[in-house]
């Protein structure tokens, strides 16, 4: 118990002190890192049932669009629009996944891509209210009561809190009976049916919960950028999301987060080569698929073992 708390405390201290360890212009990277952490963990939650969706970025876009529209058109405050757009996204996620429940594996993969593009084309097609191809601008910046979150450092801490809560909830789901059921469905859906598990219901549940948190990430992003357009949610970004999860691995809960952090660091190191980023990402994806198909998290237990041997602080890593 204490070891767990001290481990979390170390991670907490690192994340809390990060803004003071980097230059101000890197704050942007840190904030995007937090969005991606929520996004990748929510994507992993959907993946635990064995469904690889290609629409998750669009689902996140639904959150971004709904929060932007809620605050712009309805004039609701940010603190209210954030959870509401999560719920809206969950609902749209349900509409997306419902017809897909009849498909598995590759069919689900392609079907989710088609439905995701369908949603994205609605944004492109309808100028009112989605702003067409040029998207929405002048999205009000985030503020909660008297606290203005426009400045990067306060916004970073706000996102940190939201990310911590989201990931904590997803962690609880992963550890619970429901999380076990998701994984069981991944391994043997036929067996699950015969022991009374309503497989489609659980698959829909995983997708909807994942959509909720993707929507939260999208809403944060919309208010951070101040402007969104359909290009923000293109298939290329979906590929990046898949790379995070493949690099991190989905075996353990923290794999996806690990993938996001590692890839963010790699992208930062290679910032001078930014135009080559898709190439770098592609090479890394291929490298991982060939050399380490399980992802980085297969190394986690081994590294833990190594750390445990360090005298003095070794106990912290058990």
């Amino acid at each position: 118990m204490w070891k767990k708390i001290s481990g979390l405390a170390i991670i907490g201290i690192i994340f809390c002190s990060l803004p003071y360890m980097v230059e101000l212009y890197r704050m942007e990277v840190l904030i995007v890192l937090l969005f991606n952490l929520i996004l990748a963990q929510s994507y992993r939650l959907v993946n635990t049932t064995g469904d690889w969706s290609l629409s998750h970025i669009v689902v996140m876009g639904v959150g971004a669009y709904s929060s932007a529209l809620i605050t712009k058109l309805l004039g609701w405050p940010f603190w209210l629009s954030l959870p509401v757009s999560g719920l809206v996204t969950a609902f749209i996620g349900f509409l997306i996944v419902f017809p897909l429940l009849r498909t598995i594996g590759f069919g689900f993969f392609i079907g989710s891509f088609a439905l995701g593009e369908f949603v994205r084309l609605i944004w492109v097609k309808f100028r009112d209210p989605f702003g067409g191809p040029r998207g929405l601008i002048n999205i009000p910046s985030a503020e909660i009561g008297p606290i203005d979150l426009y400045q990067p450092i306060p916004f970073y801490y706000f996102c940190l809190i939201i990310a911590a809560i989201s990931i904590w909830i997803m962690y609880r789901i992963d550890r619970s009976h429901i999380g076990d059921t998701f994984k069981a469905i991944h391994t043997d859906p036929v067996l699950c049916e015969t022991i009374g598990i309503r497989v489609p219901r659980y698959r829909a549940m995983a997708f909807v919960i994942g959509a909720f948190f993707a929507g939260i990430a999208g809403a944060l992003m919309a208010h951070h950028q101040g402007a969104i357009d359909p290009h923000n949610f293109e298939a290329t970004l979906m590929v990046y999301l898949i790379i995070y999860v493949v690099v991190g691995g989905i075996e353990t809960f923290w794999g996806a987060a690990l993938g996001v952090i590692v890839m963010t660091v790699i992208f930062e190191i290679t910032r001078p080569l930014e135009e080559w980023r898709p190439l770098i990402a592609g090479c890394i994806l291929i490298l991982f698929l060939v050399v380490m198909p399980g992802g980085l998290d297969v190394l986690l237990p081994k590294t833990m073992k190594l750390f445990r041997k360090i005298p003095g602080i070794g106990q912290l890593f058990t």
Partner: protein
Amino acid sequence: MAMLEIRGLTKHFGGLAAINGIDLDIEEGEIRGVIGPNGAGKTTLFNVISGVYRPTSGVIRFNNEKISGLSPSVIATRGAVRTFQRDAVIHDFDVLRNVTVAGHLHSDQSIIKTLFGDIKGSREKDEEKAMKILEFVGLDHLCHELAANLAHGFQRVLGIAIALATEPRLLMLDEPVAGMNTTETAHMTEVINRLHEEKGMTIMLVEHDMKTVMSICKKVTVIDFGEKLAEGSPSEIMNDPKVIEAYLGAEEIVT
């Protein structure tokens, strides 16, 4: 009134009648064997009862409720649970977790409880229940072993433990001793016998291994070419000339 009541059950695959107008009654507390030569339609019968296939015609009633045409998960929820011929276990879970997952129908975990409740506490409660089942089938010493690492015989027993965790009223076993060695067969036979004797479980089993069927079941139904050929006690079946011709006789020629 029989627990499981099958009337005129027919299943066509294209032009082929895999089962053709079968009537079958299984009483509560009974242990029934269903035998027949290869391709007689035993497994199809199983798949139709458990909801994997929809019957072409005919009715299946379980506890007086019509279950034909329902989905497998709903039929399992009603209390008719089957096992598989293959090693149907969750390979990447340990033995204990296999059984706790299967206990979901009787676990008190909901999404609200997952978010706000004591997940550790209810997990321990589920594990306690699961351990009792594992003790019953004699797998408790392997509870932390990965299911994929178990020997074939133990995996099949685990399959039964998984089915038991749903607290079924009718347990349908699909060739429970297929591909097992003598020790494993003895273990499995003992588990099935104890289920019947100690728990009073109603069991229906499809089996190829005549010795096992004859030693476990009090009543046996013989199927051939999708039709019911004979029904009766093992000794009656053994001496039925039709059965000998269709099944046992053929086997004698082969061996």
